[in-house]
């Protein structure tokens, strides 16, 4: 027994030596590529509810690569390619995808991960390897609180969306009593916290705060409880299916007069399908790109390439993220003596963290230095009217106050 243990420990030490010898990364701080510029993409591509959103992100990035299929560095031209990994919208998946990318020194930067939990789990790995990520969809507000050097996001954070929602409810709708509800996901819980804080700051009252579980389908007793506190509006941060059931069961609990509002999670066709007639009059918020010619052209190209309307909301963000990375490569890349591409990762990261006044499809890109890239973007308030989402207002955040521009309602 002792002999075995001794032998094990000896071999273990040997193993550690071997391990240590091997895992100093070959050339950690630089990208070296022979012919291609490889951009990684991490999104959830499979899975019933979440798959379409990931596919949408992938398509946005693909369109960016189609539009900019090669880059000129010095006398050489390099082709651009996407390396796609499925991160399953989970922390384990995000981590696995990150490990895949970090092992490949050809990858210049990564678009993704897609879900907040994946972003959080993958960030330490990217940090350790000096990689840069630009996420088109991770909205959790504390991701940019300063801990992660590698993380950037090209999407409106929950911190902004929640503030606009709270302001709209209080100032534009004139409602002073709300009840909040979230679905137990990191996204929902974070958003609700922001909304409640801002709403109370404005002088409103949050009469009830509750949470449900994803997968529940009977909320009548809960709605009864909420109704007991007489809110004027129920704010739900979550996704389409539960939102649909809540919106429908309001009537069962005699709350049909209470306004129902959600966030970008319910700003989908799925919600309208699942809620049926109860969808009418429901509000939602979403970060929207400014509707202009370039966006229209992009959408037309999207429909032509893929044969359907975008099934998710982040395609423009993904497009911009890819283009931003390519811009960064173009400006920081050099050629080595044998003609291969050299990119200093630190310089790339600095470029992205310092980009200013760039107009993307999803809005004006201005790096705030902590990873936020779309800080001052617009948030739209939409409402279901006659079975379709219509914009009713646009909120613009300037210096911690929100200005609303109302749209004409038909």
């Amino acid at each position, binding site marked *: 027994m002792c002999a075995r243990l001794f032998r094990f420990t000896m071999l273990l030490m040997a193993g550690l030596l071997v391990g240590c010898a091997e895992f100093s990364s070959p050339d950690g701080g630089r990208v070296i590529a022979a012919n291609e510029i490889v951009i990684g993409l991490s999104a959830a591509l499979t*899975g*019933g*509810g979440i798959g379409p959103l990931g596919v949408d992100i992938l398509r946005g990035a693909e369109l960016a690569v189609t539009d900019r299929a090669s880059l000129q560095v010095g006398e050489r031209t390099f082709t651009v390619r996407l390396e796609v990994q499925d991160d399953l919208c989970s922390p384990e998946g995000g981590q696995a995808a990150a490990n895949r990318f970090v092992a490949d020194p050809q990858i210049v930067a990564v678009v993704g991960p897609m879900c907040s939990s994946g972003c959080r789990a993958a960030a330490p790995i990217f940090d350790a390897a000096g990689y840069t990520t630009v996420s088109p969809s991770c909205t959790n507000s504390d991701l940019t609180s300063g801990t992660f050097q590698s993380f950037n996001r090209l999407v409106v954070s929950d911190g902004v969306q929640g503030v606009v929602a709270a302001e709209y409810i209080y100032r534009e709708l004139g409602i002073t009593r709300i009840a909040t509800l979230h679905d*137990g996901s990191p996204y929902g819980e974070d958003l609700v916290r922001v909304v409640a804080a801002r709403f109370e700051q404005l002088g409103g009252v949050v009469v009830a705060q*509750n*949470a*449900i*579980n994803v*997968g*529940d*389908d*009977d*909320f*009548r*007793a*809960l709605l*009864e*409880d909420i109704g*007991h506190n007489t809110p004027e509006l129920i704010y739900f941060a979550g996704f389409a*299916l539960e939102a*649909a*059931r809540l919106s*429908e069961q309001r*009537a*069962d*609990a*005699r709350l049909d007069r209470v306004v129902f509002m959600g966030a970008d999670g319910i700003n989908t066709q*799925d919600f309208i*399908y*699942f809620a*049926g*007639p109860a969808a009418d009059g429901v509000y939602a918020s979403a970060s929207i790109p400014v509707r202009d010619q370039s966006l229209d052209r992009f959408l037309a190209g999207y429909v032509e390439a893929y044969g359907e309307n975008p099934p998710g909301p982040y395609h423009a963000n993904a497009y911009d993220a890819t283009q931003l990375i390519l811009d960064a490569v173009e400006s920081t890349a050099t050629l080595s003596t044998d003609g291969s591409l050299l990119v200093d990762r630190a310089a790339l990261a600095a470029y992205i963290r310092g980009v200013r006044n760039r107009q993307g499809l999803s809005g004006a890109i201005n790096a705030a230095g902590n990873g936020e890239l779309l800080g001052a973007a617009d948030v739209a308030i939409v409402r279901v009217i006659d079975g379709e989402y219509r914009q009713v207002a646009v909120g613009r955040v300037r210096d911690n106050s929100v200005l609303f521009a109302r749209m004409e309602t038909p």
Partner: protein
Amino acid sequence: MNDQPEAPVTPRQMEVDLLSRAWKEFVRNPLPVIAWLIFLVLIFLMLRNLLPQGQQPASYSPEQFLRQLLFGLAQGSIYAMLALGYTMVYSVLSIIHFAHGEVFMAGAYAGFFALSAAAQSGLLASDPFLSVLLTLASGIGVAILLALLMERFVYRPVRESPPVVSLIVAVGASLVVQQAFARLFGATARRYPTVNLLAFPWLFPNFGCDSTGADCRGIDLISGRYDVSFLGFNLRLLPIHAVVFAAALIFMLILWFYVARTSAGRALRAVAEDRAVAVLMGVDANRAIVRIFALGGVLAGAAGVLYAFYNHQVSPFVGFLPGVKGLTAAMLGGIGSVPGAVLGGLLLGIVEAIVPSVLGMSAQLKDVLVFGILVLVLLFRPGGFFREITAEKRG
């Protein structure tokens, strides 16, 4: 050997002796004490919510109670129908039919496709009653089919093994059915088309009238909502609650009639009581067991369709929680007892609707309550609160 401890003499000694005995008893079996403590905490929470605090009205009012009672009865009826399936299978095979929830789900799915077909072909608009019947029929049919397949390929091969083997196989089967349905029909949920089934115009002459006020067709059994004032309370009544409740009662009666009065039912009871003897008496045990599963399928299928009418959606994972709750209900009422299953179901539904609000628990922990009840019933009264009427079960 006379090593008896000295008998306590002084009152103080008696005190110490009592204390040490109580402590030893507690260490040996701490559960009753802990259970009582938890119970007291719950009572405290409940009172805190029921009584008004200073200026504020109570957090929980009688009106809330009444309304939640109605919701609870509806959910409870569904649980009752599921519990009957568990209880019947247990009474015959002494196993827990863990995969019963998936039969429920399959019925709901089949109903969805039937109803969608009816909606697309216009049958739903022209003859909603027939559409509903067709939906129920297809739901029940598919549920029976799945139940029979399970009996034949999942439970029968391990019938001679200990019951835990059947449970694990059932867990596997439940997984397979869920995932197969997800792959076959898509993992996203589907919405049941809205059904407007107007009925009983003679009972409710002023309901369901069209714009001229002339053609009154009664209340909407599936999608209607009607405000009613009852004893000073404002209630909103949903006829579908009554439909579900009535369905559960009707099915229970049919089941009771079948088991108690028909010869096939007699065969079932014989097999339930003692399979070996029944076989010796000439009863075809296999056929009886198949019939039991089919009956369970009927109930689960109907429950699935009704549930989907009530909640407007089906997904491959919709059977998991109701299945567990049905099992809890069956155990609560006494697994093996038909009236116990129904009472257990209704009780569980009501408890689930009311208790979280009374205790001030969050909605996320609502299911913790149900699972807690399951654990408690398993630990303390596996026979349930209504001991079965048939002779003592073995094992």
